[in-house]
């Protein structure tokens, strides 16, 4: 798949170096690396997706039909790790790599070699992580949250897991440092901070979050490692430690991580909706402030993942209030997107359809989030399928839909060809309908009492699980169409103009399509 964009840049006077390996292995070009990141993300999306298919197939009917519970636990654990660290984060980083320099008028990223390094750590990390599937005891099966003492029972896969998390962490920290350095130093003259496209803003804030919290995760897993092999007892009660402390440290990372997975999506949608509404983004500055407040709040809400561990009242109330506050800036963003559409002149190409679906379905995820924030009821919702439904609405119809919208939106710029609009619409409708069939019934399952992370369930949950699984299979198949559309577009199609979309605004649309290998070597003038 990596070869598919090969011939697209050759027209330019100094294009990429010749030779497949020389080009892709040693590349420091932000566009090449962006492509690599996105292709990697797509690959992982399918690996993680295959795991999800195993999960949904096992849950298709009550009884243990296909896999052993231990293998099922490996699937849920690995599905989460692969999707979060392998699919969504690399896809966003890829978009950042490709788009940020051209959106701020920079010739490349600030640290091109580090960029290459950061990318190539990812496959290394995932080879380690996925290799555990072939170990005697199997892959990590203690949940992606790695709670001790359970995670310490893993056996051989444990050190692999820790090392993989370290490598992936270093990769994303390096990528993020590069993004911050690029945005703060490489903007074209006249491109003040408050003139930057929302996608750049969202990524600037996301990159700060990553640099702030990924090292905390690294610290937490290092402590797990020393507890296991070097006799420390950070998290073992026997030595004076506390297993709940791991949860505090983990969620100090974990909650900002959730926003790392959604803030870039906000940036993407804020670029697409104004384009197809042919009207400027409503409340640009309040969008910036809302994004920053969400990022700030993400540091003080971690306890809402832990309402059931037995925190004292004061702690529970604090985390409940702080969590409820997140709804305010998030609401502002939703309302701003609505206001952008209001009195616009809309057309509904595939990127716009995905963006509208994003606004609506992310709202469902956000609103169930408000319900989850309430500690007294969270004691019922916690660790049930209601939570599973909630975060999949946020992460699939949120983050993943935004990535799909972004791919359709910028694909003509990357390849120089229009994608097949008719197939794109098919992909959209199949995905949107099936994803709701997949996740909506899970709300009911959770409320009716089905815990998450179980391979088998009471017979009363059979009907909704079967519907959910059918939705899951259709959603999985629909994504093959997505790949077909991308490949088809890379290989040819109607020539794209430089502006591509009628309402497109921003520096990237001043470049020819496909964009040359090197761009903005002379800074553009930004008014």
């Amino acid at each position, binding site marked *: 798949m990596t070869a598919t964009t090969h011939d697209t840049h050759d027209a330019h006077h100094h294009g990429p170096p010749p030779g497949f390996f020389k080009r892709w292995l040693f590349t420091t070009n932000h566009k090449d690396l962006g492509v690599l990141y996105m292709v990697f993300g797509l690959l992982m999306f399918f690996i993680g997706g295959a795991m999800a298919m195993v999960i949904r197939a096992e849950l298709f009917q009550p009884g243990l039909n296909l896999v052993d519970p231990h293998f099922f636990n490996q699937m849920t654990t690995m599905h989460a790790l692969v999707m979060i660290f392998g699919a969504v984060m690399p896809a966003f980083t890829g978009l950042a790599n490709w788009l940020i320099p051209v959106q701020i008028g920079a010739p490349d990223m600030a640290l091109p070699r580090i960029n290459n390094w950061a990318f190539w750590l990812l496959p290394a990390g995932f080879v380690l992580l996925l290799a555990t599937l072939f170990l005697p005891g199997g892959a990590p099966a203690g949940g992606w949250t790695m709670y001790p003492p359970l995670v310490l029972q893993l056996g051989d896969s444990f050190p692999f897991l820790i090392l993989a998390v370290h490598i992936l962490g270093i990769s994303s920290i390096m990528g993020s440092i590069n993004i911050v350095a690029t945005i703060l130093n490489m903007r074209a003259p006249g491109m003040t901070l408050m003139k930057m496209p929302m996608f750049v803003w969202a990524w600037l804030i996301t990159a700060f979050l990553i640099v702030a919290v990924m090292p905390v995760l690294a610290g937490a897993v290092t402590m797990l490692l020393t507890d296991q092999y070097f006799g420390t*007892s950070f998290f073992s009660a026997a030595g004076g430690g506390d297993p709940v402390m791991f949860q505090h440290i983990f969620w100090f990372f974990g909650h900002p991580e959730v926003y790392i997975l959604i803030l870039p999506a906000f940036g993407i949608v804020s670029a697409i909706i104004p384009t197809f509404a042919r009207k400027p983004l409503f409340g640009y500055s309040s969008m910036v402030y809302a994004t920053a407040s969400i990022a700030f709040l993400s540091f003080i809400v971690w306890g809402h993942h832990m309402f059931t561990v037995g925190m004292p009242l004061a702690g529970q109330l604090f985390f409940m209030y702080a969590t409820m506050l997140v709804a305010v800036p998030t609401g502002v963003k939703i309302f701003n997107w609505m206001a952008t559409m209001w009195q616009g002149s809309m057309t509904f190409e595939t990127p716009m359809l995905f963006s509208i679906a994003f606004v609506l379905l992310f709202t469902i995820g956000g609103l169930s989030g408000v319900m989850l924030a309430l500690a007294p009821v969270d004691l019922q919702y916690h660790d049930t399928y209601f939570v599973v439904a909630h975060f999949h609405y946020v992460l699939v119809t949120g983050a993943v839909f935004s990535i799909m919208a972004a791919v359709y939106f910028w694909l003509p710029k990357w390849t120089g060809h229009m994608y097949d609009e008719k197939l794109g619409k098919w992909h959209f409708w199949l995905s949107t309908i099936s994803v709701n069939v997949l996740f909506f019934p899970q709300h009911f399952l959770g409320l009716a009492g089905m815990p998450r992370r179980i391979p088998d369930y009471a017979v009363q949950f059979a009907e909704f699980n079967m519907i959910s699984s059918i939705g899951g299979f259709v959603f999985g198949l629909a994504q093959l169409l997505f790949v077909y559309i991308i490949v088809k577009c890379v290989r040819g199609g109607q020539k794209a103009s430089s502006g591509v979309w009628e309402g497109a605004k921003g520096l990237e649309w001043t470049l020819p399509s496909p964009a040359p290998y090197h761009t903005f070597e002379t800074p553009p003038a930004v008014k």
Partner: protein
Amino acid sequence: MTEETTIQRRSGGRTAAKMALVAVGMFGFGFAMVPAYQVFCEVTGFNGFVSNEASAGPGDMEYDPDRKVTVEFVATVNGSQPWTFRPKQSRMEVTPGELYTAYFVAENQYEGSTVSQIIPSVAPGTAGRHFKKTECFCFTEQRFAGSEQRKMPVTFFVDPALPERNQTVTLSYTLFDIRDGDLPEYDEEAAELHAGAPQSAD
């Protein structure tokens, strides 16, 4: 890089160095959360934190001699180890500010000798810091001969500062068999600290 990027607006090196420092700092912060959490728990009684160190006795603390609080005792053996471990009494009525002694009985059902570490926890969590032990078998590891059964005392008082709404305090002990593992550092320090404290013996 080569001439390709010579037209950089500004080099990002400085920013990158700063950000790298932030990353290193946050790595340290992760570790700093451990002692910070312990201090925080100690101060607020978060998560049933109970000091595993001896307190000074109540001395001539002022207290209400008519106030009564129920102290419940429970015991748990961790892991599937051949031990029995139970409190001698399931509850006591105590007056906050006065010293009491309660007994727990542990039996090593192994033939061979072994070592245990017993860890206290208090519910409700916020009462933990008001529950003071002047002498406890939990301060240090306990060695048991094969098949030995031992009655072990804990001498404690409830701080009169315990809020009025706490009418019951539960003292829970969990016994960990640590025969195979090395003793964690933390315990040895604690053990040294209390080397002088009278140890439980039958």
